[in-house]
């Protein structure tokens, strides 16, 4: 296992300490239970936005805490959902009196832990809503009743809902916006390499020098299918076609295209992938009006990419464009 770490047990805590000392102007880090809050939390009269999930997906979610995005994030152990007590404490810390929205990625563990936390928070008198993000079209069979995974769309939902909350929309309204994002966005991902969970000490899966996994999630789990590696153009077609057909996206649609790196893929490749996405969508008459390119929701050091498309309208575009100031996303201020 090759990592810049001290001890597998301490990776999450020490990375949090690094974030804390780097971004003291934007965030505060609380330990035991672990959560990251906006430096100015709670913001009175504003809906509080909480997300969380296993660590190993950085910058998600902690890197998205700040003005115009999340109020708090709960980091779990690597690839392990955080626990209800973390979420409860974070919920309390960001409740500015207008209620709290939990943005939950659809994994059994995340959903159950957030459910328990919401129950506990409600029993303490805090109004809590939850939206479960499930955008991964790689998981398509309705027999598999855990449902689709939550992946790249989560980042877009956090930004857009963050803007809505910052504009002092009500809990009801922010929740609606989040549901809308979830209903209008789809993702799919692939991997060239596995990643290594620090505790496990060896790659989660073995893969040949000429192979790739299509339809992966973000936890180093194997994908839906293994095949010989293909060109970027072919790979993009394998990712984008199921996305376009699923919603479906139609000619004339305006979309936000998010080309994400899985952690070990360099930016030069992401731009090359974006170029293919752009060509393919324009052949379908779909117009990219906003974009995000970079490694924003990762699987440790996995090499690979995911594509997320979100159908935009005026409301979502405006919320996307609104100022944001977090460790990992920043514009307009």
């Amino acid at each position, binding site marked *: 296992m090759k990592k810049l770490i001290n001890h597998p047990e301490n990776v999450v805590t020490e990375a949090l300490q690094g974030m804390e000392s780097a971004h003291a102007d934007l965030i505060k880090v609380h330990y035991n*239970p672990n959560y990251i809050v906006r430096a100015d939390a709670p913001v009175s009269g504003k809906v509080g936005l909480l997300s969380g999930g*296993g660590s190993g997906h950085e910058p998600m979610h902690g890197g998205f805490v700040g003005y115009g995005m999340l109020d708090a994030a709960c980091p*779990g*152990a*690597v*690839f*392990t*959902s*955080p*626990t*209800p*007590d973390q979420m409860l404490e974070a919920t309390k810390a960001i409740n500015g009196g207008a209620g709290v929205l939990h943005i939950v990625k659809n*994994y*059994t*563990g995340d959903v*159950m*832990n957030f*459910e*328990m936390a919401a129950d506990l928070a409600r029993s303490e008198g805090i109004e809590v809503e939850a939206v479960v993000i499930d955008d991964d079209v*790689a*998981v398509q*069979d309705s*027999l*598999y*009743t*855990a449902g689709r*995974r939550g992946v790249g769309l989560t980042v877009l939902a956090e930004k857009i809902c963050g803007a809505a909350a910052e504009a002092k929309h009500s809990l009801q309204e922010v929740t609606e916006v989040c549901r809308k994002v979830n209903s209008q966005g789809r993702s799919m991902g692939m991997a060239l390499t596995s990643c290594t*969970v620090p*505790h*496990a000490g060896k790659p*989660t*899966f073995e893969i040949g020098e000429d192979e790739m996994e299509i339809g992966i*999630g973000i*936890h*180093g*789990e*194997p994908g*839906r299918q293994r095949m010989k590696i293909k060109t970027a153009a072919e790979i993009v077609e394998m990712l984008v076609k199921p996305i376009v057909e699923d919603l479906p996206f139609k000619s004339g649609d305006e979309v936000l295209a998010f080309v994400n790196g899985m952690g070990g893929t360099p930016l030069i490749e992401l731009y090359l992938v974006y170029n293919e996405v752009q060509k393919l969508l324009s052949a379908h008459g779909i117009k990219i009006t906003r974009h995000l390119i970079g490694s924003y929701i990762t699987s440790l050091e996995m090499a690979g990419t995911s594509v997320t498309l979100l159908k935009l309208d005026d409301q979502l575009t405006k919320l996307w464009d609104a100022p944001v100031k977090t460790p990992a996303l920043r514009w307009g201020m």
Partner: protein
Amino acid sequence: MTLSRDVLIRWMQLFAQSIEANKDYLTDLDSAIGDADHGANMHRGMQAVLSKLPTVAESDIGSILKTVGMTLVSTVGGASGPLYGTFFIQMASGASNKMELTLEDYINALQAGINGIVMRGKAHLQDKTMLDALQPALDALKQAAESGASLQDALEQSAAAAAAGRDATTPLLARKGRASYLGDRSIGHQDPGATSSHLLLQSLVDAVKA
């Protein structure tokens, strides 16, 4: 013979040991069809339980089980945290103020625990989850009780049924939890949660014998 508070505490200690010994094994199973953390998750949780046990050394069985459950909920995370946590919390519900469990008490407790897992996780039998070890274990326990087996024999038959249930997860296609994302590729792999559930029930057998 009944299950005393001491036996229950030894149960948790032996389960923690068993998890420690099988940590890498559980993680390997989870690597194949999940995210390579089940061993680490359970280990983190049971270490926390170990350090909490002294605080309930004098408590009734309900409090012991509830403390175990709450500790697991707040330290494990993932799917297994709320599931095992709920399991113990629900087991505790009928055991408050009890200083020992009869076989019947234990059957009721196990039934309540499993109900909790189903309520929380909404899994069915054959979905390739811990339920596939626990439910047969409960059935065997009831059958043993009906046929008048001793507590120890009943627990042994229950653990054996859990082992069989665990083995039977291998050919299943997963429909719940992370393994379900793999579709057909989940077939041929033993479920990690069913494996740890068997370790749990086997540890009780060992605790009774010790």
